[in-house]
């Protein structure tokens, strides 16, 4: 299917204006309907501060941002952020890899991965940056409103990588160990709390008898 003229004009503009600021060429793909998708891979995150004003001058509209771990290896966490823009129907994705902080001998990171805020040029970056700050524990320098967006302050940042059972989050269920400790605290001294394992042991004794 033929690409819309507006997208072709947008492509020509971006090819002319962005590669110098990005320090990288734009690679292009197309879907079955002829819609154009541009992809820029930056060398580093601070480059965004040079590229963002050039993109704003091109009248690009910020659609959203995606923070992610490219490798999803818990032993070696990485961070990258993909910024998705629109210009007259063309979609441009700019990916910035983040430098990870050094890790001390106890395995604790000394600081957080950092990225400059693009809110000076794209006002609607505000919520997007707040979201990945809390989900992926990324520091955004120069953000005008660095408050939590969806998660309560008492929750750890970077929680996107953890899986917490709903019952635990709702404080409604307990582990076997917790159940036994609670019941033991309530029962008179010397009494054993009835648990599944206790029932099983009694049943086995009855069976053997």
């Amino acid at each position, binding site marked *: *299917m033929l690409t819309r003229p507006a997208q072709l004009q947008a492509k020509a503009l971006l090819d002319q204006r962005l590669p110098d600021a990005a320090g990288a060429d734009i690679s292009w793909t197309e879907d079955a309907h002829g819609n154009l998708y541009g992809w820029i891979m930056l060398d580093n995150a601070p480059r965004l501060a040079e590229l963002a004003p050039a993109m704003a001058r091109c009248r690009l509209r910020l659609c959203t941002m995606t923070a992610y771990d490219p490798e999803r290896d818990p032993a070696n966490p990485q961070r990258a952020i*993909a910024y998705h823009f629109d210009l007259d*129907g063309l979609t441009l994705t700019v990916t910035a890899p983040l430098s990870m902080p050094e890790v001390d001998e106890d395995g604790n990171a000394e600081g957080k991965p950092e990225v400059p805020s693009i809110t000076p040029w794209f006002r609607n970056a505000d919520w997007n940056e707040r979201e990945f700050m809390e989900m992926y524990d990324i520091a955004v320098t120069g953000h005008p409103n660095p408050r939590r967006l969806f998660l*309560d302050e008492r929750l750890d940042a970077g929680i996107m990588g953890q899986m917490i059972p709903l019952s*635990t989050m709702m404080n409604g269920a307990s582990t076997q160990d917790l159940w036994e400790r609670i019941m033991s605290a309530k029962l008179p001294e010397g009494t054993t709390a009835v648990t599944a394992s206790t029932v099983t042991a009694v049943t086995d004794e009855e069976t053997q008898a």
Partner: protein
Amino acid sequence: MSTAVHTPQIDDHVNTDPRAGFTLPVGPLHVALEEPMYFRVSVEGETVKRVDITAGHVHRGMEALALRRNLFQNIVLTERVCSLCSNSHPFTYCMAVENLAGIMVPERARYLRSMAEEIKRIASHLFNVAILAHIIGFKSLFMHVMEVREIMQDIKETVYGNRMDLAANCIGGVKYDVDADLLTFLTRNLDRVQKHVEEIYNIYRNDPMVRGRTVGVGMLPQDKALEYAVVGPVARGSGLAVDIRKDVPHAAYPRLAFDVITENGCDVHSRAMIRLREALESISLVSQCARDLPGGDLVARLPEIPAGEAVARSEAPRGELIYFLRTDGTDVPNRLKWRVPSYMNWDALGVMMHDCKVSDVPLIVNSIDPCISCTER
């Protein structure tokens, strides 16, 4: 680790003198709100000076869940982000997979996808304008619009088996088909809906009670609409002709005739007019799909999904919906991200509510047709 609980507090400097500043908590649970959201509204007398929004009450960690499900299971997951725009999510998600893998969706399936999307749009828009009537106290109009919407709900139940979650889409095509009887049922009921929507449109356009509460309320000038990058009927109500169905052709839209609806009032009334006019446009689109539906397969043969990344966009009832997918060659995504239209529109409430009256707060919030489930995932 505790649950996210927010208890709104009245500020210590509360003063009973109505001329002094006062902070009014609205929500997270409120009779005017369908979903929980906390608005901290700073007022001087009855005039709103500032709005702070605290979200997160419906955050379910769905993007994290998506990374623990395979590409097929995520069709089911994404449909459950929200019920009002439930079709848009799996529709756009499937397009992202298809864009990544180069899958060509059969022609018949493209028409059926557009048909499902437009049927949802009509019902969603009618719901929003009905709630507007409810908020301004025009109860009979609210009931009338909801009754008309019930015709669309019946259509959905008959064609798809469900009033809200249609389960219409799959990777490479659709999971449903229509025969001559269903098409007759569909077109006959669309004719009924069209007559009612035309009548409802005239009421909303001209009724003094509706106009008195909505014209000039919740102003979002066009330059602010551009600055905040709002989308959907909110953008089009401020004169911006942004519509993904035209700007990023997909499904059957390149072959269907329709206009991008805009209004220049920039207010609550304009956004309601946009939705009613779009409902009429969508009736035409569904009729065109029913009339021109080609024969052929419902789903493409699926290749192995390679490692890569892709973006897909669609025009959900609330505006632009964007999906970003990264795969690593396995059947579980490396990353699945989606940004819903409501996400872009919340921030603009600060502009729309500036210097409005407290009683207009629920009206203005409703005018952006917010979907909190979508926003927070």
